[in-house]
């Protein structure tokens, strides 16, 4: 109050290392963007990089390679950010620290629709996948939410997770049932399913942007309410949060972000989980900071994984989905061992 300077209070309410973390993330972001533009089957010199980015008149081979990589890099950024935010939202909604977009059955729902599209509707292009995947993801999320909300106590985190697990089991067996007798569908699906940003172009970016913006805006708007929701449904209700509405909005935004990313790049796992966990370890559980920082770190993780994949798979490429799983799984095990995992 009067005897405590107001500035002191202000600092106290911000996470301790916020400024340092933001600075570090921005540096890493710039470095990873640089790496994504410069490295690949052909490594570009710094001069070529600068020519390609800032001197449109220069027509060297290096500069044009850089320009070709711009779309892929931007797509990687958006995709990683979307997955990071989606993870933060899913974890908040289910109040489950290991929740990933896959927890609500979203990935599997998207997969099922894409498989059906390939098998029964002869669909081949990404711009058609995205609608199928998003519709699949949405319907699955609604279905899971519906089952999870049955009973008087509404959509509790536990019921949501159980409903998600059950739905995932059913849908993935359907996916398998459709794939097994159809080898040609299996080949096409396998390519999509691995998760890759390699084939991304400006079209993918344009398709992605509206979904991305909508998801991010909703996420930022619901963040304060998610903070209240983290204290339990009863406390949140006491603070004036419409718990059902907020859960639904946050889940919707999470599905939108993850569904769009999955549709265009295939299921890329672990990024939502990793980004959110790393940020939470350093800056704490305040969702208002968690969401933007998870976006940035998700983007960094995806870009770095993508660059690593270009080296490890040389002369070809290793898909980013494989890399994130390889990097993500051990780190997740470390986090699990280090942090006291709260049960739901």
């Amino acid at each position, binding site marked *: 109050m009067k005897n405590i300077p107001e500035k002191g209070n202000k600092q106290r309410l911000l996470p301790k290392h916020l400024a340092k973390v933001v600075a570090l993330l921005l540096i890493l972001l710039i470095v990873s963007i640089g790496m994504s533009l410069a490295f690949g089957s052909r490594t570009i010199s710094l001069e070529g990089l600068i020519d390609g980015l800032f001197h449109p008149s220069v027509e060297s081979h290096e500069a044009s390679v850089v320009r070709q990589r711009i779309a892929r890099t931007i797509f990687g950024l958006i995709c990683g950010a979307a997955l990071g935010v989606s993870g933060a939202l899913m974890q908040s909604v289910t109040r489950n620290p290991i929740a990933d977009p896959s927890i609500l059955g979203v990935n599997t729902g998207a997969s099922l629709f894409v498989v059906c599209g390939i098998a029964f509707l002869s669909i081949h292009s990404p711009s058609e996948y995205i609608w199928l995947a998003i519709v699949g993801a949405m319907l699955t999320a609604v279905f899971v939410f519906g089952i999870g909300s049955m009973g008087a106590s509404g959509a509790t985190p536990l019921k949501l997770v159980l409903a998600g697990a059950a739905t995932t089991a059913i849908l993935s067996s359907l996916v398998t049932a459709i794939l097994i007798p159809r080898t040609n569908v299996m080949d096409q699906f396998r390519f999509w399913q691995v998760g890759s940003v390699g084939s991304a172009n400006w079209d993918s970016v344009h398709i992605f942007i509206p979904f991305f913006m909508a998801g991010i805006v909703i996420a930022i708007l619901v963040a304060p309410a998610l903070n209240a929701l983290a*204290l339990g449904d009863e406390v949140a209700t006491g603070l004036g949060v419409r718990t059902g509405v907020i859960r639904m909005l946050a889940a919707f935004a999470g599905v939108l972000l993850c569904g769009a990313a999955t549709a265009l790049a295939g299921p890329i796992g672990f990024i939502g989980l990793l980004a959110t966990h790393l940020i939470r370890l350093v800056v704490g559980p305040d969702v208002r900071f968690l969401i933007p920082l998870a976006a940035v770190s998700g983007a960094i993780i995806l870009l770095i994984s993508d660059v690593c994949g270009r080296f490890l798979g040389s002369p070809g490429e290793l898909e980013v989905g494989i890399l994130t799983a390889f990097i993500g799984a051990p780190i997740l095990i470390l986090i699990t061992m280090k942090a006291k995992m709260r049960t739901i």
Partner: protein
Amino acid sequence: MTTHTFETKHIQSGYDNKTILNDVNLSIPSNQISIIIGANGCGKSTLLKTMARLIKPTGGDVLLDGKSIHKMAPKQLAKVLGLLPQSPIVPEGITVADLVGRGRFPHQSVMKGWTKKDYEAVAEALEMMNITEFADRHIDELSGGQRQRVWIAMALAQQTDILFLDEPTTFLDITYQVEILDLLTDLNRKYGTTIVMVLHDINLSARYADYIFAVQKGQLVAEGKPSDIITSTLVKDIFGLDCAVINDPISATPLVVPKGRYHVKS
């Protein structure tokens, strides 16, 4: 000091399809401390939750200043009516200041963010609960009594005229029970906050309550000042306990002394 009327009209309430409360009519005395007592499973928590809009009654209504609380905008209602449930969730790694600050939610909007008033309210709540020195600590590092003070500080930061608490002293040592009840009394004396809580301990209830509501099998069976209503007959009725009621030598309020089957002087 703001006064409010807070009433329940013929409320019928419960969980799933099981009705627990039946036709409860009561009026909470403004700017006083009311305590709801009753045996386990009598519906006292259900009553508190129904009044604090955690459970929507299946019949009747809960009225704040004559208006149904279920027809008010949740955020507006949350500026008047605060709530501390029995087992809130502590997010992992949260600091005291962060948790207390979340009590400001109903006063904030997306556009405004944190204002000077918010910082002041948090600082004041921390100070009142004597936890300013813990502001940067993680909740996991605190003792049970300190944790409960943090939760009450969160409810204080909300700055409501009415505060509901569901068994705020459960699981605490007797020292901390008294400490928490003293702090709540401070709050009532200093700001005139209307406090309504469920307590297990009938003697602490008799000492700290201005007004008691006794609940039995989902019905309100007695209400009034502790000295007027706490008698051995009432205790026998609602708890099924044989006891003597004597005068508390410290507070001059009724003191329930259980009889039991042993140790009775012949």
